[in-house]
């Protein structure tokens, strides 16, 4: 049964993300919108597992690309040898979630495709939430990997801390956001579960702009002060 229910935030509103950071915020979100349950027809070909955003993020570039509709921006005229134009912009629409990622800055379409795919991974991490059970919660490895070494639950076998510039950060960020949503935006509660001080977790959240904005969006909805 390749179908699952995903909690998706702001479904359909992703195009807003690309205009400017100021437009990121949804002006009057309602709890209903926020908790929108999105029925997703997961890719039925690959497996019988139900898909979560963790599954999307652990896909290879190739398989993730298979789930996407790719458009290059409207090219007028006959193209090919007729044209000299660097219309190399790439737009990826991730069919299962409707998330759109695009890239235009490079001269090569090939590289823009890679950037768009990397951006899609970040958006999937930020925007697709999986419910977690707080009873007996143990953080997954990818979350432990982005925690600072002083975390009391982080064993020495986890390796050195993965920072925001590492592609693996997205997966850890996703697990952290799942946890923060589960505790309704409370950084102190999340910090306890991660063996960190509230300050240390705040600093981790503030170290990445998109992570900070996502957490602050949630906190605003819950009537909490933003992290600064």
């Amino acid at each position, binding site marked *: 049964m390749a179908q699952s229910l995903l909690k998706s935030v702001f479904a359909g509103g992703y195009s807003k993300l690309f205009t400017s950071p100021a437009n990121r915020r949804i002006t009057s979100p309602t709890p209903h919108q926020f908790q929108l349950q999105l029925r997703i027809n997961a890719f039925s070909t690959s497996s019988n597992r139900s898909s979560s955003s963790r599954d999307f993020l652990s896909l290879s570039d190739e398989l993730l690309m298979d789930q996407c509709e790719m458009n*290059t921006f409207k090219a007028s005229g006959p193209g*090919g040898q007729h044209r*000299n134009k660097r219309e190399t912009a790439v737009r990826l629409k991730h069919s299962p979630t409707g998330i759109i990622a695009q890239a235009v800055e490079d001269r090569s379409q090939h590289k823009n495709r890679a950037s768009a795919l990397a951006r899609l991974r970040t958006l999937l991490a930020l925007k697709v939430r999986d419910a977690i059970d707080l009873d007996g919660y143990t953080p997954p490895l990818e979350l432990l990997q982005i925690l600072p070494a002083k975390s009391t639950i982080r064993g020495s076998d986890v390796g050195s801390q993965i920072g925001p510039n590492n592609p693996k950060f997205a997966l850890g960020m996703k697990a952290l956001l799942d946890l923060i949503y589960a505790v309704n935006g409370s950084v102190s509660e999340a910090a306890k579960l991660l063996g960190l001080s509230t300050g240390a977790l705040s600093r981790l959240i503030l170290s990445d702009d998109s992570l900070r904005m996502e957490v602050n969006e949630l906190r605003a909805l819950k009537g909490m002060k933003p992290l600064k």
Partner: protein
Amino acid sequence: MTLCFTRTIHSLPFKHPRFSLSNPSKRPISNFLPHSSSKSPPLLRPISPKPHLPLFLRPPASSATFSDLQKFHSWAKGLAFSVGSKFLDSDNGPDTDLLCREIKWLLEDAVDDTSMLPHLGSSQNPNLTGSKLIRLKVDLDDLYSLWNQRIEERRPFQYIVGCEHWRDFVLCVEEGVLIPRPETEMIVDMVEEVVSKEKGLGKGLWADLGTGSGAIGIGIGRILEEGGRVIATDVSEVAVSVATFNVQRYGLQDKVEIRQGSWFEPIEDVMGKLAGLVSNPPYIPRDQIPRLQAEVGKHEPRLALDGGENGMDELLHLCEGSSFALGSGGFFAFETNGDEQSELVADIMTSKSENSFRDVKIKTDMAGIHRFVTGFRR
């Protein structure tokens, strides 16, 4: 003023068009099979075949102050803004937005330390005083001339910087060599797919006919397995020297061999043995050449664009030759002008010499145009 400027810049080391653009008579000679055409076959031997070093590969032997570079930047943007949608409206050429992006790319290639580029547009930077020297790979005067050529002559951006970003390669290009197009990147994707599915093809011998800068040949050379090789050919001496340079820059000499000659002529020794045959031949119908975007029609080699009366001359020749060139199970992929041409090519390949080919398919490019025809030799 323009004329005077044009004279000056033609004497710069940057621009040496070896083919007179007004002399499009150099046509590929088709030696493999008789095919009727009114092509004249004069063998123009161009001068030195040594390719020009693209801007980004040059040593940073010049310099300019930060404030002088800022002046260039705002002058260049001023020119770009003066264009507006003029080129776009006249021949679907670049508009201000695209030209501004090109200025950024030009500076990326011309400046040694690109970290200062984001600060060019702003007036105050604590760490950058106006007198700070910025190392450049080209004289500031030449940078002015180059951007002027871009706007006044519509010289293609890729010839200005001497390279084109294509797939994950940066390929050297210059006048006399077709600038590889983004659409053509898909041929390599198709080959990659076929090589992963059909056992043995990746270890075989491939040919890229009319390789130009070497783009497709290099792209395929990178994905073939141990033992797989590509012969990439071109009739143009400039193309051969540029393609050779590009192959060497990526260290693919053992994988990609460049040969000079027209279509099947330089691969006569391997006819019937090929695992794959790919080509992006000239396919523009001749009567459309005068109306092409100026960057293309006035600057790119007509040899690489003009496909004869209906644009099919070279494609027909490739169709003819491919049943002799490919071994059993061999794959072919040709780029075409789109809808009518691809249907015609697919028809020919399907009905050809008692079903020589199987699984003949038309594939679309990113803009939805039926751009490619692919299939297999039985």
